[in-house]
């Protein structure tokens, strides 16, 4: 029967279908990547969270034991608290500063040089950025403390238990603010100039135009940028790893660092995976929120 239809079908009708083999052949390499490094790890990570596994012996199914342990683990909850503190400080400063810088780039100068300079810290790795600030903020010889003590007569320990998280958050604001500003700047570009010109004709000040035109029209992009940077900052690791290693005591032991420590310091992959599942759920919730917020704002631009 198949031969009959194939013979009966004119060459033209077969044309749209003959991509099938090539279409699948072309996604094979990417498909391998997707299955091996996204889908399979996802399944495996969830499975590991229900086991006890130390890399050397086969994993043992332990049911909800890891999750029960998580609920009662005060260091875990401290890590959650510290991570949230980091996210709030980081996102708060980064978004406000980036918005100001983006608007100024739009209204004052659009020079590529200015934009390049602001982006520079983003080009170097977190490790380099962490080293650089470790030196500048150093307790005994760092330039910032030299200045502070010249003015106030006292020096500040930026990596003490009360200041470690704000310090790490500000270091990462420094690295990322230019990137975030450029994202917002791109959003600003999609607001037609005529809207501002109309505003000018009506005698609106820059300040009024910012609140009445820029912010409302920017809301969808702002929401997108906000959620994106939030997902990134929940996974803070590099800076902590180079500067404080989670210390003093647990003051800067953020969730991702604790997970790393549990897996590679103590080889408790099961428990580490359970905490990763916890983080995954939080991030999934944020992603869903992202879609809600961006969809809700979409009408504004049209």
């Amino acid at each position, binding site marked *: 029967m198949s031969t009959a239809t194939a013979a009966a079908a004119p060459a033209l009708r077969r044309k749209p279908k003959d991509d099938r083999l090539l279409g699948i052949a072309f996604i094979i390499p*990417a498909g391998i990547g997707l299955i091996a490094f996204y889908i399979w790890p996802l399944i495996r990570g969830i499975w590991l969270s229900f086991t006890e596994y130390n890399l050397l012996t086969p994993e043992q199914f332990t049911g909800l034991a890891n999750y029960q342990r998580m609920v009662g683990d005060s260091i875990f909850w401290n890590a959650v608290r510290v991570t949230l503190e980091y996210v709030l400080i980081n996102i708060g400063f980064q978004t406000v500063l980036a918005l100001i810088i983006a608007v100024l780039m739009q209204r004052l100068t659009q020079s590529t040089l200015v934009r390049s300079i602001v982006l520079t810290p983003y080009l170097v790795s977190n490790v380099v950025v962490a080293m650089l600030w470790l030196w500048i903020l150093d307790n005994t010889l760092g330039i910032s403390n030299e200045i502070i003590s010249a003015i106030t007569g006292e020096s500040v320990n930026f990596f003490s238990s009360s200041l470690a998280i704000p310090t790490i958050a500000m270091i990462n604001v420094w690295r990322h603010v230019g990137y975030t500003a450029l994202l917002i700047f791109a959003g600003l570009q999609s607001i037609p100039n005529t809207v501002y010109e109309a505003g000018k004709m009506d005698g609106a000040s820059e300040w009024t135009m910012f609140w009445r035109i820029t912010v409302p029209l920017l809301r969808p992009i702002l929401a997108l940028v906000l959620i994106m940077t939030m*997902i990134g900052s929940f996974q803070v690791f590099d800076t902590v790893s180079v500067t404080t290693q989670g210390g003093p005591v647990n003051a800067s032991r953020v969730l991702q660092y604790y997970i790393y420590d549990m897996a590679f310091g103590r080889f408790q992959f099961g428990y580490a995976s359970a905490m990763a599942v916890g983080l995954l759920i939080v991030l999934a919730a944020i992603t869903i929120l992202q879609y809600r917020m961006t969809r809700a704002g979409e009408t504004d631009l049209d």
Partner: protein
Amino acid sequence: MSALTTTSTGVTAGAKTEQRRSDKRGLSVGRVIAWIFMALVMVITILPFYWVLRTALSSNAGITSDPTSILPVDINLRGFARVFGMQSTEEALADGGSGASMNFWIYLRNSVIVATLVTAGQVFFSAMAAYSFARLRWRGRDAVFTLFLAALMVPSIFTLLPNFVLVKQIGLIDNLLGVALPTMFMTPFAVFFLRQFFMNIPRELEEAALLDGASKIRVFFQLILPMASAPISTLAIITYITAWNDYFWPLLVSYTDSSRVLTVAVAVFRSQAPTSGTDWSGLMAATLVAALPMLLLFMAAAKRVVNSIGFTGIK
């Protein structure tokens, strides 16, 4: 997304009129304050890099005796010599070093290999998949593409631990291929990003080539890839920078010099530094040396990178 992709061409034209308009407006208090703020932002951005250079060129004794000097104190290159392992251990210790050095050229080579493997593989394979999703017709295509898109939402922390177990099981721990592997085939974002561009290439061009007897494979290599060279090179630059700066994954899989990349090497060099009387001159030389390749790449391609942020960021 489509609105944003058009901005990159609109920016240059818009920038000129904007410039002219703002010149006429003259100086107001608000604008002066705004400029001062912008200048401050630039200074805070740039100055730390200068401070790294100033420290790297100073001696540790000089840093201690004159910590606030704007210029390098007791200017010398011994910090760099220590980083490159060109100082004898006695000299290094006398200069405040730990006696440890970085095998800089090995780490540089490793970083280049990893970033190149990741970029070449990811961009090429993602382009193939993007072409398949954008231009080829096959059953189940949209369902498979949705699966790719869904993978965008899987945060890296979640895949890192199982990926480590996987890479360990296939025996690629402490191997450069193991460092490159997870991102070498694709990222969902790269597929999505290129698909957008491929969809915008006029279908007539493709049909003309097909009528002339070209195969779809030839169309991909000789028509689609050259026509999309701008977005492809943009993606390549961004992928290269991201791969180069990655720290967490290489930290997990590399243990010795044979697979250690520059980011990990700098962190290790830092952890070897003496806790009292830290070798800041050497550390800052290492920091500078690690930052330099990407800063140079950025200088060469600043305009492309800067203009690309708008559409790469909108995921």
